[in-house]
């Protein structure tokens, strides 16, 4: 295990991502609402670069009290990491695959110290 330097804290703002490669291991580091998250850049589907796609909030159906369909919207509190190969979605805050939480992106620890961001690989 090693702490791998990603960048200075000043370089990442909310919504940003960095991909770090150390030997054969690639990790995506995210900043969201002031917190950092890091996951292995390897999709549980066909091994695609899961952390290189877009971030898109979870889509929800809006239902009326009588259960009729009113439309759709995004859940602002539930951003998803979207794998660019086929669109599998993972919860940014946990790495769980949105439609099947048994499948996960492998999580890595992020360390902030002396103004720098480090990921443990």
């Amino acid at each position: 295990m090693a702490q791998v330097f990603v960048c200075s804290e000043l370089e990442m703002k909310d919504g940003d991502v960095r991909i770090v490669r150390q030997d054969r291991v690639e990790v995506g580091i995210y900043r969201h609402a002031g917190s950092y998250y890091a996951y292995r850049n390897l999709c549980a589907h066909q091994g695609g670069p899961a952390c290189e796609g877009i971030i898109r909030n979870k889509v929800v159906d809006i239902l009326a009290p009588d259960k009729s369909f009113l439309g759709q919207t995004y859940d602002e509190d539930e951003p998803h990491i979207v794998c660019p190969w086929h669109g599998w979605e993972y919860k940014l805050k946990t790495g769980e695959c949105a439609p099947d939480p048994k499948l996960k992106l492998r999580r890595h620890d992020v360390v902030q110290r002396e103004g720098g961001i480090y990921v443990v690989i």
Partner: protein
Amino acid sequence: MNVMTPIVRDPNQQKFDTANHLAHAAQQAEDRRYEDFMIVDVDSHHYETGSYKDIFQYIEDPVMRDQFVYTKGQTMMLRSTGGFQEMAGRIARYEYRNSEQAAEGGRHKDITLTLKWMDAMGVDVACVFPTPMLGLGLNPIVEVEVQYARAYNRWLTEHILAAEPRIVSMLYLPMNDPAAALKMVEDFSGRQGVVGFLVTTVRYKPLYSNVYMKLYRALEERGLPIAFHAATNWGDQSMNITNRFIASHALGFTWFNIVHMTNWVVNGVPERFPGLKSIWIESGLAWVPFLMQRLDNEYMMRSSEAPTLKRKPSDYMREMYYTSQPMEMIGNRTMLEETFKMIAADTQLVYASDYPHWDMDLPSTIYDLPFLSLQAKKNILGETARKLFKLDTVLSPQKQARLKARAAA
């Protein structure tokens, strides 16, 4: 803990490049040593829309040519297939593919880009099909299908297939005009890279019709397979009660092959043309055991309605060929293994990526299946298609170089 110096990048600042996009596929190819055997991809695509200007010049009817030019191809789109393949920006290659620079030694962009993804995945030979043309069979103007198919086939054979031996195709048949379809076979078979002919199955003319018998005979005589490529038609009466693309796609891409396969079998076409090989493309695999069981069950009660058959429907279906993509890999491995057995996958299943479309499958979807022998994997990934298309055994220059490097090490 040590502190180490890594490579750090911001993916949002990178220009789209097929090799980057598929870097993980290239790693899989290397790790699995795909250089040890040939991989043939039986269903992949290019976007003919990027070459419309050139293709339109091949339209023989001058009036229709002008119509295509001035509608910028919309003449061909008089139909309602449609769909949201790009998933609102989620599938990166849809949005960015047009921005990729691909000029290389004067070669056509489609050749350069195709070879790029083939090399990343470890594919040696790819059978390439068009994209919007998959819905051309719905066009209400029969001459549009005939004229455009002929123009496209001329353009494809002269500019792509003749220029790159690793790219082959099965050429579009304008089935709404049976005589024109037959003429297509007569005129184009034997050209470099033409390994068969293609019926797009979003169409509403029954394939058992007597008007097609000369066509089937011509293909059988030439030893060329007939392929059936599925798609969906959101405007179909049954599909247009679906409101989400997932529904139209999941159903449509199997439904049209199910209908045509059923007609093909119960009318005894395989019995009438025993030498005609058929390939069923892009419906996944789960539909095949379903249809085999369903037809066999009914055939035992109603064989009088399918008197040309000498065996059960499933016996004919087991002798046909199926492309693997999009393989239903979610959930039940036992079911998948049973499916492979039911379709005699060792000899009848052929790998397809469908790249660059949204639900593409990598060769690892086959290679990593634990229940297959190494020989079965090699058959499915390349050998069966190589024999079917009568191809030489070839490895890409990249794979040859890897073999050399291994030998030298």
